[in-house]
């Protein structure tokens, strides 16, 4: 087992080591311990390794991740897995604001709650939240899926593009141009597969689906109140 004690090794050295592992490395599993809320931890990874962050961590943990699996055994700060391209990031605790922001691919699983703006501007990532998400989640969400097993805060999916939103609990309010859509068998099946992949137990039939009304796609003066 490979590990780094962050009181003994600097974050710079840790990131550099994790980023420079070759594709065929056999040092596949890493544990980071003695953490003190470091920012930008395990960012810019490019290889299919597994990194366990053994504690609470700061902003942008696993930012821009490619291929790696990063598991955070604690809470995490703003922008976890921001702009993730592929791979998997799992937060065992709760996540702060802007979780998975602008993510383009891969899977982000949050086993606790997520703060405001979860999935903001998401561009293809799949995000599964076992708990609830805060206000303005999926703001300007472009594509990918946001699954919320608990409740969603106000203005969910404001100015949404083609992302798919699934919420099991209550939605405080929907944002501009976001509407409830029909949950077809096709969607139930897709959601079921995603929940399974995320390892979250829930009945996909109990979710409602939300998406874009597409009325703001081309500017029209009659919609001026919505802008």
């Amino acid at each position: 087992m490979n590990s780094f004690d962050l009181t003994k090794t600097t974050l710079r050295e840790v990131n550099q080591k994790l980023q420079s592992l070759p594709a065929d490395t056999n040092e596949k599993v890493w544990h980071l311990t003695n953490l003190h809320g470091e920012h930008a931890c395990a960012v810019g990874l490019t290889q299919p390794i597994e990194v366990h962050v053994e504690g609470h961590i700061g902003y942008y943990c696993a930012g821009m991740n490619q291929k790696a699996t990063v598991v955070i055994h604690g809470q995490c700060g703003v922008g976890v897995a921001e702009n993730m391209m592929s791979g998997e990031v799992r937060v065992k605790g709760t996540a702060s604001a802007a979780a998975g922001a602008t993510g383009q691919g891969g899977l982000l699983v949050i086993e606790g709650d997520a703060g405001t703006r979860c999935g903001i501007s998401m561009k293809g990532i799949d995000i599964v939240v076992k708990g609830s998400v805060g206000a303005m989640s999926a703001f300007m969400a472009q594509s990918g899926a946001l699954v919320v097993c608990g409740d969603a805060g106000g203005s969910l999916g404001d100015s949404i593009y083609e992302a798919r939103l699934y919420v099991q609990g209550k939605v405080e309010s929907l944002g501009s141009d976001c509407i409830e859509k029909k949950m077809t068998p096709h969607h139930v099946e897709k959601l079921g597969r995603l929940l399974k992949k995320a390892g979250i137990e829930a009945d996909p039939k109990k979710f409602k689906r939300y998406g874009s009304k597409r009325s703001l796609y081309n500017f029209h003066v009659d919609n001026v109140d919505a802008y």
Partner: protein
Amino acid sequence: MSDHSPFHTPPRFSSTFDQDAIAQIQRAAATGIYDIRGGGAKRKVPHFDDLLFLGASISRYPLEGYREKCGTNVTLGTRFAKKPIELKIPVTIAGMSFGALSGNAKEALGRGASAMGTSTTTGDGGMTPEERGHSNMLVYQLLPSRYGMNPDDLRKADAIEVVIGQGAKPGGGGMLLGQKITERVAKMRNLPIGIDQRSACRHPDWTGPDDLAIKITELREITNWEKPIYVKVGATRPYYDTALAVKSGADVVVLDGMQGGTAATQEVFIEHVGLPILAAIRPAVQALQDLDMHRKVQLIVSGGIRNGADVAKCLALGADAVAIGTAALIALGDNDPKLEAEYQKLGTTAGAYDDWHEGRDPAGITTQDPALAARLDPVKAGHRLANYLAVLTMETQIIARACGKSHVHNLEPDDLVALTVESAAMAGVPLAGTNWIPGQGKY
């Protein structure tokens, strides 16, 4: 009998309700929507034409043109980056998105800039192979929209520019109308084809200078602390924005004035928000000096730069380099009088064409229409840009030598006077023929 009085005076137009104001009211009444256009502020604002160089005299010794060296190189990113950027000339190409510009235009910018040893910059829409392939030095923008943001491209870049704002629209997000969202552009931005795209005005994952500092750290961690990190702001509160950018860990501050071009923004925004660049340089330099960071954190300024005199004036006021957008497009072939017949068909005329958002550019620059884009020969256009950059540099040197400077960075405010009280106050240099700097001292 005449049907009007013999005392009838010639028609008099109002200077308040001038032709343009009347046309704007009529247009608004007819359409119910604000006007969108490209370009920068078109009205007259205090600018570099209001400044003059003093040149050498009995007390100052000039340098011999053509023989005595006058350096023009600039190093950017000396504060934290392991690999600073070395420009041969103090003029860079500003960020302009693929989407707003055609692939050929981006290639031409890369060719021209590389020929002269300077950099180009991506824009709201990601990095294209045309641009990376033809730019020896490429600055990659991190914008609020994050369209096409990709860690592989981040690592391919030579520098990273975090865009907070732009001079044409400080506080506004990007805009790219449906006509220009072709399949390729849509794919790069992960958007449906043909929609009117309005990109965000705030970054999605940070707010305020403390967060920005962390964001910059993340970018450095992802790129091994190699690349210079620029922070670009529209000129609004240049003293504080510069100080906060420095505090957040920027290597370079990019300051863009209200004359700076845009691909598409509301007319009212372009003309009424932000400061002319003339008014913004001294406060920014002051902030750097107060923090003992002048020349350690480099300052790039832009917004309405046309000739070597403008470049020299920016440097004399304390900038390290300038960036050009509009002028570079003109050098490529934008607003060419040869295309007058086609401009007429679009209801405009060469020199005034600014409907860049419509994607019908007869010069093939601000378009995504393959047939129009094919009109621009990237090799020839790149050559024109290189010529223009060479002239800008030589003109800057002519002035610097006349002021006795062996490097363009040795130009200083003492070399300048102002023609108007306003420009004297804004640039912090004396009104010509006096030793009066309005706003300084006891008056």
